[in-house]
C-alpha cells in the first residue's frame, strides 16, 4: 500500500511536469499575435515600440529559455503577469476561483447526495415508480443543453414565479462577507452573518442545479447500473443464504462494491464542474474562473491562459490521484 501511494505520487509529479511543457508549447505556438491584440494596430506598426514591448515580456528569448523561466516561476508560485490586467496571474486566479469552487462543490454535492440514493433505490425497487423517476431524471439531466436549461430555469423561477433570486452571487445591494476563504457560504458563517449566508445560498440554488444536471443524471444512471450489476452477483446470494437482513446486504455488501465505479465517475465529474462552468457562469453572471478564462482567451492574454490551463491540468491530476488512492482504500484488489 505505501508503495502504491509512492508510485501514484511519482506518476502524478511526472505528469504535472509534462503538463507544464505541453501547456507552454501550445501557448507559444498558437497562431494569433498577442502584440497585435494588446497594442492595437497603430502601436503595433511602430517597430521600436514593439521590440521594447517584446523584451519587457520576455518574448525575444529562445523558446527553451522561456520554458525554463516559466517553469522556475511556476515552482515559485509565479504564473507570470497577466497582460490584460497587469496583475500576477495567480492573484487573478485566486480572486476568481472561490466563486467557481463554491458553485462546483455545491453542484457536485447536490448531484452526489441525490444521485447515489436515487440510483440505489431505483436498482433495489426495479421497475417501480422510483425507478421511472430515476430514469427520467438521468435522461433529462444528461440530454438537456446547459445553456437552454439555464435560461429556462432563470425564466421560470426568477422571471416567472419569482421564487428564486436573480443572477450574481449576492443581492446587488448586499455586501460581500469579509474575505477569508472567498467562499461566501463559509465566510459569512465565519463572520456570524446569517442573512448573508441565506442570500448566498439562495443565489447558489439555480446555477448549481443547472451545473449539476448532467452530473446528476450520470451519477444516477451509473449508480443504478452498478447496483443492479452487484445485486445479481453470487456473493449477494451467499449473504442472503447466511440470513442477513436485506438492509445489511445492501449497505454492507452491495454498496461497497457498487461505489467503486462511482468514485471514478464522480471524481472526473467534479473536475469537469470545476473547469467547465463557462456557460453557467455567463448566464448567471457568476464571477468565476469560467468567465476569467473566456475573457483571457478573447484578449489572447498568454500568461493568463497558461496559468489557467495549468490550474485546470493540475486539478485533473490531483483529482485523479485522489481517485486512485480511494480505489486503493475501497478495492483491496488494487494495491497489493
Amino acid at each position: 500500500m505505501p508503495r502504491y501511494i509512492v508510485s501514484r505520487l511519482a506518476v502524478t509529479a511526472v505528469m504535472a511536469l509534462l503538463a507544464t511543457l505541453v501547456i507552454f508549447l501550445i501557448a507559444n505556438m498558437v497562431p494569433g499575435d498577442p502584440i497585435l491584440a494588446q497594442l492595437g494596430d497603430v502601436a503595433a506598426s511602430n517597430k521600436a515600440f514593439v521590440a521594447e514591448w517584446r523584451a519587457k515580456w520576455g518574448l525575444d528569448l529562445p523558446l527553451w529559455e522561456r520554458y525554463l523561466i516559466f517553469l522556475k516561476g511556476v515552482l515559485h508560485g509565479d504564473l507570470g503577469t497577466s497582460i490584460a490586467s497587469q496583475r500576477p496571474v495567480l492573484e487573478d486566479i485566486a480572486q476568481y476561483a472561490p466563486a467557481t469552487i463554491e458553485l462546483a462543490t455545491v453542484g457536485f454535492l447536490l448531484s452526489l447526495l441525490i444521485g447515489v440514493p436515487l440510483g440505489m433505490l431505483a436498482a433495489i425497487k426495479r421497475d417501480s415508480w422510483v425507478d421511472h423517476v430515476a430514469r427520467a431524471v438521468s435522461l433529462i439531466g444528461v440530454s438537456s443543453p446547459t445553456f437552454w436549461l439555464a435560461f429556462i430555469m432563470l425564466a421560470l423561477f426568477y422571471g416567472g414565479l419569482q421564487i428564486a433570486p436573480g443572477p450574481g452571487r449576492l443581492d446587488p445591494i448586499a455586501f460581500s462577507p469579509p474575505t477569508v476563504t472567498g467562499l461566501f457560504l463559509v465566510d459569512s458563517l465565519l463572520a456570524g452573518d446569517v442573512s448573508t449566508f441565506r442570500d448566498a445560498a439562495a443565489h447558489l440554488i439555480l446555477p448549481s442545479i443547472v451545473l449539476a444536471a448532467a452530473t446528476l443524471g450520470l451519477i444516477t444512471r451509473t449508480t443504478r447500473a452498478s447496483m443492479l450489476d452487484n445485486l445479481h452477483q453470487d456473493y449477494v446470494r451467499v449473504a442472503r443464504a447466511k440470513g442477513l437482513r436485506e438492509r445489511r446486504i445492501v449497505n454492507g455488501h452491495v454498496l461497497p462494491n457498487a461505489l467503486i465505479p462511482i468514485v471514478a465517475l464522480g471524481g472526473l465529474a467534479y473536475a469537469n464542474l470545476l473547469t467547465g462552468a463557462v456557460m453557467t457562469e455567463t448566464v448567471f453572471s457568476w464571477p468565476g474562473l469560467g468567465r476569467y478564462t473566456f475573457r483571457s482567451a478573447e484578449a489572447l492574454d498568454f500568461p493568463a491562459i497558461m496559468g489557467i490551463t495549468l490550474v485546470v491540468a493540475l486539478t485533473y491530476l490531483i483529482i485523479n490521484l485522489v481517485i486512485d488512492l480511494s480505489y486503493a482504500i475501497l478495492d483491496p484488489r488494487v494495491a497489493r
Partner: protein
Amino acid sequence: MRAAAPGRTAPTPAVLAVSDLRTQFFTDAGVVRAVDGVSFTVGAGEALGIVGESGSGKSVTAQSLMRLLEEPARIVSGRIHFQGRDVLAMTPSELRKLRGAGMAMVFQDPMTSLNPVLRIARQLVETMMAHGSFGEGEATRRGVKLLGRMGITTPERAINSYPHQFSGGMRQRVALAMGMSNEPALLIADEPTTALDVTIQAQILELLSELNREFGTAIVLISHDLGVIAGLCSRVLVMYAGEVVEEGSAEAVLSDPKHPYSWALVNAVPRLDRDPTAGKRLTAIEGAPPDPLSEPPGCRFAPRCPFRIERCSDHPELLEIGPGHKSRCWVTQAGASLELPATAPLSTSPVAGEVGLATEGSEPGEGGIVALVRSSPPRPISPSGRAFGAPKERPTDLSHEGRGEEPPFPTPLLEVRGLVKHFALPKRGFFEPHRYVHAVDGVDLTVKRGETVGLVGESGCGKSTLARLILRIHRPDSGSILFEGNEIAQALPGTIRPLRRHLQMVFQDPYASLNSRMTVEQILDEPLRVHGLATTAAEIRERVAELLEIVRLDPKSGARFPHEFSGGQRQRISIARALAVKPSFIVADEPISALDVNIQAQILNLMLRLQEELGLTYLFIAHDLAVVRHISDRVVVLYLGKVAEVAPAKDLFAAPLHPYTRYLISAVPIPDASIERRRERLRLAGEPPSAVAPPSGCRFRTRCPLAQPICAETPPLLAEHRLGHFAACHFAGQF
C-alpha cells in the same frame, strides 16, 4: 479414506422432507418448469447426493429449499418441511432465522461467492452475529478456529485477508467455514468442487465427509459427477428435466442403475478402475435434454432413450422397484433389466448414433447408441501416404518383456526440447524489479505420428502455455520445436504459415472460440481460403458439407449461426474447423471439460473415430485423468512448468513412478460407491506453490512426503526408469 456409513440408510427422523416441489420461471418466452414435482427426505446426519446434467434442475431445487430464488422464479406448489416446520409458510423474518443457522449453503464458484472488498473476518463473523449466537470477539475467535478446522494454515493471518489473496480451494474452505459457523443441521453444497482441481476436490470432499461425521450435519451434495457423490453419499437422487428419475442407495444406483438415463450417465464416463483396452465401450446417448419450455408429454427421456417402448409415450411415475430403490421408467418397473444387446454392428455404422441434430435422428431400433471399441480397425492411409496399419497397441506391452521389436510409431511428428517460456508480470511499483511466471520451464516432449499424447496436471502447471508454444501462438524464450523436421521455435510468421495447415487447435470453450457473427459456413471456409485449399464457391460449398458430415452435423446447417447449436454441437463445429485444412496434428486444450458427461462421451468417440479414419495425431490436454487414460497412448504429467513423468498410458496408471502422479491418480473419484468407500486414499496436502518463485531443486518437494535433503539441492533429471517410462524424481517408484 472415507469411512463407510453403515446403517445411514436406516430411517432416521427426517431433517428435511420435500414433497411434490414445483418451481417455475415465468419468463417472457413462457413458463420453464425447472423443478417439476420433486420429493425426497434427508435424515438427520444423512448425506444425500443429487446428480444430473446441467439444466436438470439441481440448483433450482437447492435454492428452493431455502427460498433463495427471486423473480421470475416462483415455487408454485409443494411442501418443504425442515425439522418439522413448514418452510413455505415462514414469514421473511422466520426465514432469515433459518438461513445460515439451521440450513446453510455452499455454492459452486468460490471465486465469485465471497465479497471481494470485505475481509474474510467480516464475512465470517457476520454469519454468526446475524443469528445472535455470538458477540463479535467470541465470533472472531470461533472464526479463527473454524478456518483452522477447514484446513487453512495460519488462520489468524487468513482471517484478516481479502478473498483475492486465496486460491479457489482455499476460498471454498472459507465458504465451508461460513456454512458451518452456526453448526447447521443441514448443509447444502451445490457443485462445491466442480471449479477445483482434482487434488483439491479430493481434499474438500474429505473435509465434507469429516464434517458430516464429526458434527452429524446432514449434507445434500449436488454434482454432475457420479464419482464425487459415490464416496460421500449414502443415497442418490438422479434428476432429469426437472424430475427425479431414480432414487436409491449410492451402491445400487451406481452399480445397477434402474433408469436408462442413470444407466447412460454411469456408462458414459471412462473409469480409472476399469481397463480401457479390454474392449470397453464408452456409451454416448444421442441428443441433448429437452427444451425446458416444451417437455415431451410422455417420458421426458424418451427422445434419447435406447430402451424406449411403445408405452413410453405415457408419463411414468416414480415407483418403488426394489427395497429403497425407485425408478421412473416403464421398462424397469416391469422388471426388465437394462442390457443392450451386444451387437457389434453398432460401431461400424457410425452415422447411426453420434448424430447431433434432431432432424437427423437415427432409427429407433438402434436407439441412438454409439459404442466405440477401443481396439481399432486397421488404419487407413494417411494424407502423406504413409500406412497406419500398426494396430494401436501399447508399446509397453512389448517393452515389459524387453523385446526389441520396432516401435509402432516410428517417426516423431513433433519433437520439443528444452522449451522455456516465462511471462513478465506487471510491475508492482515504479521501482520494483520485473517478476516472471515460470510457465513452461524446460519441457521435452515427443509426439509420434498417429499417436495420442495426453497432457495432465493441476491448473496453472503450464498445459495451455505448452500447447500455445507448440502452435507458435506464443514464441518460446528458448528451446527447440521440430515439427515434421522443421525447426519452428524461433521461426518467423512467414515460415510458420504454410505449416499452420498441418497444426490445428481445438479449444475448451465452444462458446467463446467461435465467432458468433459468422455462419458455420463462413467459419469453415475461412481456413480454406486462407490456405488456398478451395477457391471456387462450388468447391467451398462441397468441402463445407463434407466437413459437417465428417463431424456428424447436418451438412445443410452451414447457413446457421453458432448460437443456434448446443455446446456439444459447437465443439463439433470447432473440430470441423480444425479439420478443414486437413491437418496431421491437432492440439486439443480441454476440449470436453465444459461439457456434460454424455456430450463428453460423444465428442471423445468422435475424436477417436476421426483419428482412425484420418490418421490424426493428437496432443490431448485434460484435467480428467480417466478421460486422458481412455484416449491416450502416452501420458505426460506436468508439474509447475516441468515434466514430472512420461509413460505409456497403461503403465503410468498401473505403476506410476513419480509421487505426484500417484497422488493425482489417487485423487480421482471412482463412480462406484463400494469401491470408493473401501479405497485407501492418498491425500496430497496443500496446493502448488507459486510459479513466480518455484522451489529449488525438485519443484514437487514442498508437497512430497518422500522429500530428502537432496531434493532441495539437485533438480531431478527426467530419466528412463523402464522402457519408455520416464520420471523426474530422485526416488522414483520408492513409495
